[in-house]
């Protein structure tokens, strides 16, 4: 009797998995991306023109952005629209699953939109074509000018449903825009959507600016500016444009980042040539010294729970990575491999530290566990550094510089991203040369 029960249970399980909804496994590099059809969103005929927006094109444009987002993940293979078998409005009501399966699609996105009374109403559905089921559906209303964000939010919802992980499409990247010859670079703070759209410049290029980083709510940026030829850490409010110097230090402050609660800035301060790590509370203005060592201590990065700090020090002779408690106690070296290490950045999931490694004249971006074990090098190049995590901890963005000729010719600086699996390395499109990227958290959280 017992045996019979067990057999039945197993049968039930396998039966269940046979009809389980499609899933994308993102823990491995995905060499077999999921074929997905993104139907243009049907534009309701009651829609009216809205200033500066091509309403008739909106359904196509939104679906194109979704397709591009999916293609860039490397996890999905968006199918060509010419092969689509149903009109957008009919498919959105209920797709003929067997017809879509014929073009080898496994998932289908449909939707419709209405622009009326100065508002954009959008709904979309995600269909599992194999199981012939609706997987998720969502409707929302916003201002028509937000249409690109609508596409990103839909992308996030679908990504979440299919991978079980938070998405990262409704995000922005802040970076340093570069122009001019290599020995006289003009650098400006720039911000763009994750897909390269909506680039805005936040400084004019009159002074050298470096290493911008978002606060947890994405409204503030901390960065290094050479304003009045005094290199100091600054704070910038993106909305108001207000800038202020952080603290009153008698020398260079640099390498700033926010604490995970956004209340403190952690950075290096160079006193008489020696760089140590400090924090400053933005509300109380209280400054705390975290390290006190005759070596260079820099590139600090908090763990997401705020309990630990990873940093870069040459106290052993050459650059290595260290982890300590957030009060500066319990300093432990975590890198012992061949080569030297810099720019440790704690993953938002807390499980990994991304870093730059230099060995035999080559530069690597890699990840390791927070105790230094399990080092994996993801990409090798002539020069690359400064990884920054996507908010879901699945992708890294970093910058790369090319080898220049004797007059500086052939030099370029570009942004790249790579999955932590080591797959799907790709160049990000930026209006100018670019460096020092920092990825925001999800804007619509």
């Amino acid at each position, binding site marked *: 009797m017992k045996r019979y029960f067990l057999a039945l249970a197993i049968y039930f399980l396998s039966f269940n998995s046979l009809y389980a909804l499609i899933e994308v496994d993102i823990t491995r590099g995905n060499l077999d991306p999921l074929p997905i059809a993104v139907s243009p969103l049907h534009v309701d005929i009651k829609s009216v023109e809205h200033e500066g927006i091509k309403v008739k094109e909106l359904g196509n444009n939104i679906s194109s952005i979704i397709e591009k987002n999916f293609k860039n993940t490397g996890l999905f293979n968006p199918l060509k629209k010419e092969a689509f078998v149903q009109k957008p409005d009919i498919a959105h009501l209920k797709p003929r699953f067997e017809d879509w399966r014929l073009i080898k699609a496994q998932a289908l996105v449909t939707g419709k939109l209405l622009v009326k009374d100065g508002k954009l109403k959008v709904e979309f559905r995600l269909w599992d074509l194999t199981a012939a089921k609706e997987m998720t559906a969502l409707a929302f209303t916003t201002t028509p000018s937000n249409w690109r964000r609508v596409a990103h939010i839909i992308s996030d919802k679908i990504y979440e449903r299919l991978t079980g992980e938070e998405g990262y499409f409704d995000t922005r990247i802040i970076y340093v825009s570069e122009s001019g010859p290599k020995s006289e670079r003009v650098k400006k703070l720039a911000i763009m959507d994750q897909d390269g759209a909506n680039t805005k410049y936040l400084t004019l290029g009159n002074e050298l600016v470096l290493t911008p980083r978002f606060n947890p709510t994405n409204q503030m940026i901390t960065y290094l500016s050479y304003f009045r030829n005094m290199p100091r850490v600054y704070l910038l409010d993106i909305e108001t444009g207000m800038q202020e110097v952080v603290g009153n230090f008698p020398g260079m402050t640099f390498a700033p980042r926010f604490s995970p609660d956004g209340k403190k800035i952690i950075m290096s301060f160079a006193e008489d*040539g020696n760089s140590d790590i400090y924090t400053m509370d933005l509300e109380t203005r209280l400054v705390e010294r975290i390290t006190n060592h005759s070596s260079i201590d820099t590139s600090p990065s908090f763990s997401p729970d705020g309990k630990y700090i990873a940093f870069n020090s040459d106290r052993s002779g050459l650059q290595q990575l260290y982890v300590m408690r957030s009060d500066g106690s319990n300093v432990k070296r975590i890198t012992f491999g061949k080569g030297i290490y810099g720019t440790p950045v704690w993953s938002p999931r807390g499980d990994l530290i991304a870093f730059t490694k230099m060995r035999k004249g080559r530069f690597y971006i890699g990840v390791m566990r927070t105790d230094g074990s399990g080092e994996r090098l993801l990409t090798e190049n002539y020069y690359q550094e400064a990884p920054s995590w996507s908010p879901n901890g699945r992708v890294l963005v970093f910058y790369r510089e090319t080898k220049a000729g004797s007059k500086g010719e052939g030099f370029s600086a570009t942004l790249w991203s790579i999955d932590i699996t080591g797959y799907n390395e790709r160049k990000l499109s930026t209006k100018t040369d670019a460096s020092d990227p920092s990825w925001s958290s999800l804007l619509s959280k």
Partner: protein
Amino acid sequence: MILNTNLKNIFLVVFTTLILSACSTAKKSGDLDGDVYTGKETVKYLAKGVPDRVFFATNKSSLTTASRATLRKQATYLRKNKKLNVTIEGHADERGTREYNLALGERRANAAKDYLMTYGISGKRISTISYGKEKPVNPGSSALAWSQNRRAVTVKVN
């Protein structure tokens, strides 16, 4: 006869290779001691016979014998010109992470400043600034360019 020409060709090839490699090593040892730049190509002068800069080995901020000689000349010059203040600009080559290079440039500028102070120049007359890898004097990506960029430059302020 055929064999003979072949041998001649090989000899010619070997011979040219020898000349070429001899040239490149000669140039290297002329401008570099280890990997510290010893040439004059990028050097400017605070006054006649007073070079404005010192050079460093990769990842190092220690002063070489030649650097100390240069800084003693600068100290003598600053002692004679008591009203002159200077800024020492510390730089790194492009082969390091940006933030570490900022710290390294700071350390190099201060190494030069400390040496001037031991020769009697008041620290009040000397400010320092680090540019890390941001302002290469030689924009190339070669061992020579990097050696010229690893530097601390003394600049007159007034």
